[in-house]
């Protein structure tokens, strides 16, 4: 071992010598112009010195090797997703409380949006599920499967609780709804078809052969850039424009573009329970209709497939307020 060390050190000395020689030679040759010359570089060692060669009690440090997100943390994401949907259903259908629902959606925005940076989300998982269903060589982890199917199952029974309580993309738009105007019903309907076109395109691009495959929902996600504080400038601008428009037109992405919203709307048509407006013989004020920024109350009835679980209608209802005060 001692020999090996000596040899290595010796070789290192040799390696250092040409450097010194070269510098010296250059100094001799041209007194003034030495600093303009670059080194003629030669690798001083042929093998990496090990702790024994280095001496002085040196220990080779471990290579930085951060592991992927732990499995239990991924499962936690799914559990939180399920729990948040459960709480949203309870808050809206049983408690009829908008204030707590806003709290829940802000917590979801903080966790699923800014902490998890928008990934994974059911909207993008449409593509992975599509590919995994069709391509025999492609498969997805169980957590992704759960992320995709859980909100659909909840929608099948209670409506779009995911949109109101959990979705970070929805929550960030919900924050900016300041002065919503009612969009003409016909226009709303026509624009509503866009999300099915988008869904079709997303499936079309996801089903292309592996090398040509494209995940358009993720690539054109307008808000993920804000969550990550980084991303393609044009998509961050698109997100900013959507948020600016969202001040006057409630949640434009959710209503007209979100492909997963389209799937949830289909499931919600079959929902067992959902937001309901109880007919009232004495008071037919329509305050709830005016309060709904999403055009989801038509002729004093809730249109469940369009209802985004924001509970504004309950909040605006004078009867509901009275009831709360009594109990």
């Amino acid at each position, binding site marked *: 071992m001692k020999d090996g060390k000596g040899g290595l050190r010796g070789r290192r000395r040799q390696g250092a010598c040409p450097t010194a020689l070269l510098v010296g030679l250059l100094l001799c040759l041209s007194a003034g112009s030495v600093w303009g010359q670059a080194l003629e570089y030669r690798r*001083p060692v042929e093998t*990496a010195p090990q702790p024994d060669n280095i001496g002085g009690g040196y220990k080779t440090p471990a290579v930085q090797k*951060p*592991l*992927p997100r732990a499995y239990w943390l991924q499962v936690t994401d799914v559990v939180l997703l399920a729990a948040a949907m459960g709480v949203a259903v309870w808050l809206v259908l049983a408690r009829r409380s908008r204030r707590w629902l806003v709290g829940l959606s802000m917590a979801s925005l903080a966790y699923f949006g800014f902490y998890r940076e928008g990934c994974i989300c059911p909207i993008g998982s449409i593509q992975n599920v599509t590919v995994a*269903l069709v391509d025999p060589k492609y498969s997805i982890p*169980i957590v992704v499967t759960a992320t995709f199917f859980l909100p659909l199952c909840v929608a099948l029974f209670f409506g779009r609780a995911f949109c109101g309580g959990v979705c970070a993309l929805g929550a960030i738009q919900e924050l900016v709804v300041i002065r919503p105007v009612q969009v003409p019903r016909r226009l709303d309907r026509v624009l509503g078809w866009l999300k099915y076109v988008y869904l079709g395109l997303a499936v079309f691009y996801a089903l292309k052969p592996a090398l040509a495959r494209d995940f358009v929902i993720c690539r054109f996600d307008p808000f993920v850039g804000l969550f*990550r504080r980084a991303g393609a400038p044009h998509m961050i601008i698109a997100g900013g424009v959507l948020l600016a428009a969202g001040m006057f037109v409630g949640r434009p992405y959710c209503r007209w573009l979100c492909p997963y919203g389209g799937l949830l709307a289909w499931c919600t048509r079959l929902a067992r329970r959902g937001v309901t407006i109880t007919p009232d013989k004495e008071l037919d004020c329509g305050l709830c209709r005016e309060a709904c920024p999403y055009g989801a109350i038509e002729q004093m009835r809730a249109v469940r497939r369009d209802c985004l679980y924001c509970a504004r209608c309950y909040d605006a209802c004078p009867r509901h307020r009275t009831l709360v005060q009594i109990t």
Partner: protein
Amino acid sequence: MSDEPTRRDLLGTVARGSVLAALAGGAGFLVNKAHGQIVWQVDAARCINSRLGETGVPACNLCTTECVVPLSAVRAVNDYSHCGRCNICPAYFNITSPVGEHGYPSRKLCPRDAILRKPIGKMDPEDPANNFYEYVIDEEKCDGCGKCVMQCKEPLGLGSITLRVRYDKCVNCNRCSISKACPQKAVIQLPAGQAV
């Protein structure tokens, strides 16, 4: 408003049940073929910055420019067990820069000054060239531009520095934007267990 189930209720239950069954079937199919997590990683044997034979060409910095993560999720990582601990490290110094006062190149290579150099082991106070030096890459400063990787490989270096995807930074995009741009197809997907 009776408790008797109406025809409409029954139809609703049947429809709901069948959709639920379809969803469960789809989920079951996917769970059945599921595997563990898949991650993106740089294949050092394909990456132009680390693969042998490409010398004297400018380093490829697509990992820096294409990644969606700030500074990029790809960082240069020094595998110390293969590091030569050279006195004049071609990845630390810009060896084409003019020689400075102490015989070292006058400029550093890293544009973000992310590499730290310190003498290690038994010191020789007489001759600094006879000491070993450890080169630690500050992963918080590194943006994976690949300049040091290109210089560290043979014949100038021993190839201990390579570009690696940092899984704590990588958001595991469906289609990694670097992999899309990489002309060498060096950014590949592999099971987390096999990833280095």
